């Protein structure tokens, strides 16, 4: 069954108020074209789940700057002054998690489980007494699973069945989010017929993917960022 969709129709399936996971760590893996279409269509009151807020005026930062985002669930927004300012001014709610805990909360939902027991941060201020569980003689922190209505994913390559292959450091949260969201929308510059991948080398099996959008080209966001070049 072909999962090909147009950019417009794929994003039009997202209502205002949706909870949306967005792949990517910094630029690599950020689905800039899907995000830009969401900006154009203007859905509001969104909850976004993403490792970071991208750089100012790029990616999800544009959605936040445009007032479309109610809440951001993330690990670190230190590289983005625009989002830090909006957070400090109380214009957006931000929930922070340790990076591996955010990954694991998403992965737990993706595995169809409801929570997990950890000791990360158990002696830090991020842990409240309500989070603690005494179980079989030991104390754990309970971290609950984090699901979403939609996931927006960038893949280097895909096929019509939704099988995905990622590239470089662009894997990061994407395979986890593809498992954890009810409706998974993928952008890729390279969409082909089933049979193009070695079956062992598929990163995300098509079963987890609902819509695949073929891009004519990558956005300019995927150029080299001069301030990350060492001099």
């Amino acid at each position: 069954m072909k999962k090909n969709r147009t950019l417009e129709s794929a994003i039009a399936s997202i209502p205002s108020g949706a909870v949306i996971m967005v792949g990517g760590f910094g630029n690599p893996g950020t689905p800039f074209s899907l995000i830009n279409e969401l900006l154009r269509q203007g859905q509001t009151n969104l909850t976004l789940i993403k490792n970071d807020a991208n750089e100012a005026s790029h990616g999800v930062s544009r959605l936040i700057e445009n007032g479309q985002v109610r809440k951001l669930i993330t690990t670190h927004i230190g590289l983005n002054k625009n989002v830090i300012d909006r957070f400090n001014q109380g214009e957006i709610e931000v929930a922070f998690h340790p990076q591996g805990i955010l990954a694991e909360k998403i992965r737990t939902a993706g595995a169809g489980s409801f929570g997990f027991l950890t000791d990360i941060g158990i002696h830090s201020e991020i842990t409240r007494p309500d989070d603690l569980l005494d179980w079989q003689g030991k104390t754990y922190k309970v971290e609950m699973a984090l699901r979403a209505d939609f996931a927006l994913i960038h893949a280097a390559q895909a096929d019509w069945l939704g099988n995905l292959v990622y590239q470089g450091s662009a894997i990061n949260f994407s395979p986890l989010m593809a498992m954890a969201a009810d409706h998974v929308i993928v952008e890729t510059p390279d969409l082909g017929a089933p049979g193009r991948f070695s079956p062992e080398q598929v990163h995300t099996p098509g079963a987890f993917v609902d819509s695949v959008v073929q891009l004519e080209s990558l956005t300019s966001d995927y150029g080299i960022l001069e301030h990350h070049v060492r001099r």
Partner: protein
Amino acid sequence: MSDVERILRRAVLEITPGSIVNLGIGLPTKVMHYLPDDFDVQIHSENGILGAWKQAEPESMDPFLIDASGAYVSLREGASLFDSAVSFAMIRRARVDLTMIGAFEVDAHGNLANWKIPGRFSPGIGGAMELAQKTKRIVVLTTHTDKHGRPKILETCRLPLTAKACVSRIISELAVIDVTNRGLVVREKLADISDADLQAKTEAALIFAIESGEEQHGE
């Protein structure tokens, strides 16, 4: 030699050949550029890289390959790329041998504070909490005092902790200090600073145990 350069050159000596090392954002990521090109080490970056290496020339830079600080990197032969859950599994399972990490404050108990200054700086936690809590060995790279000249090596941290009792060693531009059961033990120091002057720049009490024949810091 600048203070930063002195810290970075000393930091290189902490890396055991054949080990897996994570370099935190800030000073630590710069350590990579002081490593000999043929040095046997695998650099772990928590965004999903084992085997990250020095940035390529601009013409061959890969926009899809950055480290956790956002800087473009290259890969060594034998590198692997994986998702964030696997990356932090590697950290929590203590398969990372050494993490070099920056600090706002570090104290005599090995406590580390490097993620939040309430009311002034709270950009999020990133990967620091898990790296600090779970890596086998944590070495803090920090200037000995802050930009106002105030000590960063304290008796007890005042900022919210990243992790408790996690630091093994502190490397500043002035000294190399181990966290021990007895307290902070100075292993190396600059030849031109006296014990009293070093103590004056340090809030925590220092024990001086510089072995003769041991490499002097900053050489």
